[in-house]
């Protein structure tokens, strides 16, 4: 017993001795009239996941480097933690707090009521209050353009879609793809398959092979990490396909014609800039081609193999979408 107490004492002493003097709190900046923007972020998972959460963290970093904001982040697993995080940001006078997922809506509304001076933004969702808004990405505007490419280039007149979980946002991108394709060829056939998750690459590969066997000669995926399986199958069978969410052109450079790219960090930066400039309006924040959050990025290696006029046609329709003369169906 005595030995344990001594050991414990030593541990504590060591803990205190380790405190480096350099970490003393720095005095506040000498220009008090320009308070730095304070921005918090709650993610539903680890920011080292190389996916959904990592991209939000990247967005927060961009807010810090480009706006000089003071940033804070918490990984939150339960609604109790969502509320704790949001309330804590509100109580400490943060200007803006992001919740990275639709599941943060309830917590945002509750904290928004208690802390009217903080703006709460959820990534996707439909809850709006005076200081609460969701940002909704319009990836479907890019997949509409991919549909045009598929319909112009396909020999079989069929394309396949591989989805992870059947979420409205994913169905929306498929609806738009189909609409884009049928704007070129009204008889174009589009078949969608859902694997039920976002990480089983083997299931995505099998789903892709079955679509190819059924005659599809263009594949679009919305399966996040499982998308690797789609590219494997397309490379094996030399069937052309599209990347999605990120610029995936380099993952399978022989078969990916273009990627529908969603620049999430830019969306975070845009919202933070609006809040800083007091331009924020409570509404569903649609972020798409006009806001330069969504775009189609060509694979330069395959651009030359396309039929003449395809690239020009896509660029023309993109301009029409931008001007509002072509309406892309949202599907939800």
């Amino acid at each position, binding site marked *: 017993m005595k030995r*344990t107490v001594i050991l*414990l004492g030593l*541990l*504590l002493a*060591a*803990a*205190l001795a*380790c*405190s*480096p003097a350099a*970490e003393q709190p720095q005095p506040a900046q000498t220009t008090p009239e320009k308070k730095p923007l304070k921005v*918090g972020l709650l993610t*539903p998972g*680890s920011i080292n996941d190389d996916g959904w959460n990592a991209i939000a963290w990247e967005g927060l970093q961009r807010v810090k480097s480009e706006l000089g904001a003071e940033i*804070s*982040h*918490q*990984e*939150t*697993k*339960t*609604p*109790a*933690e969502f*509320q*704790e*995080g949001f*309330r*804590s*940001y509100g*109580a400490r006078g943060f200007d803006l707090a992001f919740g990275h997922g*639709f*599941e943060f809506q*309830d917590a945002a509304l509750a904290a928004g009521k208690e802390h009217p001076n903080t703006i709460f933004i959820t990534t996707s*969702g*439909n809850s709006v209050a005076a200081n609460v808004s969701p940002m909704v990405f319009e990836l479907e505007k890019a997949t509409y353009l991919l549909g045009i490419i598929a319909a112009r280039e396909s020999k079989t007149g069929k394309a396949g879609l591989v989805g992870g*979980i*059947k*979420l*409205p946002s994913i169905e929306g991108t498929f609806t738009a793809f189909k609409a884009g394709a049928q704007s070129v060829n009204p008889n174009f056939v589009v078949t969608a398959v859902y694997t039920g998750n976002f990480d089983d690459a083997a299931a995505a590969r099998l789903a892709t092979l079955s679509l190819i066997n059924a005659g599809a000669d263009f594949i679009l995926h919305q399966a996040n990490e499982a998308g690797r399986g789609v590219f494997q199958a397309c490379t094996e069978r030399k069937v052309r396909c599209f990347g999605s969410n990120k610029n995936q052109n380099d993952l399978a450079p022989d078969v990916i014609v273009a990627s529908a790219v969603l620049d999430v960090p830019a969306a975070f930066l845009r919202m933070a800039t609006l809040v800083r400039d007091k331009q924020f309006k409570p509404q569903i924040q649609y972020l798409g081609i006009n806001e330069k959050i969504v775009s189609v990025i060509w694979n330069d290696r395959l651009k030359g193999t396309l039929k003449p006029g395809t690239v020009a046609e896509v660029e023309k329709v993109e301009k029409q979408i931008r001007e509002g003369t072509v309406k892309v169906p949202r599907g*939800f």
Partner: protein
Amino acid sequence: MKQIALAALAAFIAIALLALAAGAFGHSPSAVLAILFEGSVGSSFAVRETIIKSIPLLLTGLCVVIAFRAGVWNIGAEGQFIVGGLAAMLAARYGVAASFLAAAIAGALWASIASLMRLWRGAPEVLTTILLNFIAIHLLGWCVNGPLREASGRYPQTDLAMATLPRLGGVHFGSVLALIAAIVSWWMLYRTTEGLRLRATGFNPAAAKFAGINVAAQIVRAMAYSGALAGLAGGIELLGVTHRLFERFASGYGYAGIAVALLAQLHPIAAIAAALFFGALSSGAGELQRSANISATIATFGQAVVLLAVVAFTSRWRKRDA
């Protein structure tokens, strides 16, 4: 008395090691300790968050205490928590009381699947309860994507539950219920013949059988009590905090209950302190992330250290007592 000292020591060591670990990653240990304190009990806001997090921990902790006391390794609190939440959701239209009753019954029935498999084929609960967890997780996933999906059909979550727990000073009423559950569990274990039989079964099933206890039936009942507590935890979490179901509804409360029970040395009253400790650790870890950008894994690390210290000390003391 010795046991309390031991648990406190384990908790103390864990915090010291946490501070040291943070030191190894370039943060000042004293600053880390200050933030941990500030974020867990340093303000009325922090205390509230700590209590809210401790409520499900206490109930799942009690669930594990009761089962372990009867010698049954129920590590299925996670699954029982989920079916409790599901049942409470379905019964919410009939009010809070009906919800909680449904949650407790659902948890008890879910746990009973494991005890029935033990009776029928001698399947060990360690396996069956953990497998039942996965079944419950997928059952919930199917429900929120299918029959219970919100009316607008937009996201894989249910609509808001039709009942809500009243609040007491910023903390929902579940805090009182959890405390009552701890006291009732203690009373049942130490002041009733049922509790005596239950503990005897756990202590030495052969001797208990010799003394005329129906060991099989006793285990079935213990599992049902245990499951009912975890189910109730799910119901309280639903009506007090989340107000709706979604796929990650349980998010580890069931497994954390094992840590609570072990730190409490399987004592229902000590479980109150253990749950508050882990609740505080988790709130403090949140604050560490927000104000010092120290990873959330630090709380998990702290939990692991506490458990290792408790296990190491108990075996050491047992050896000395023998």
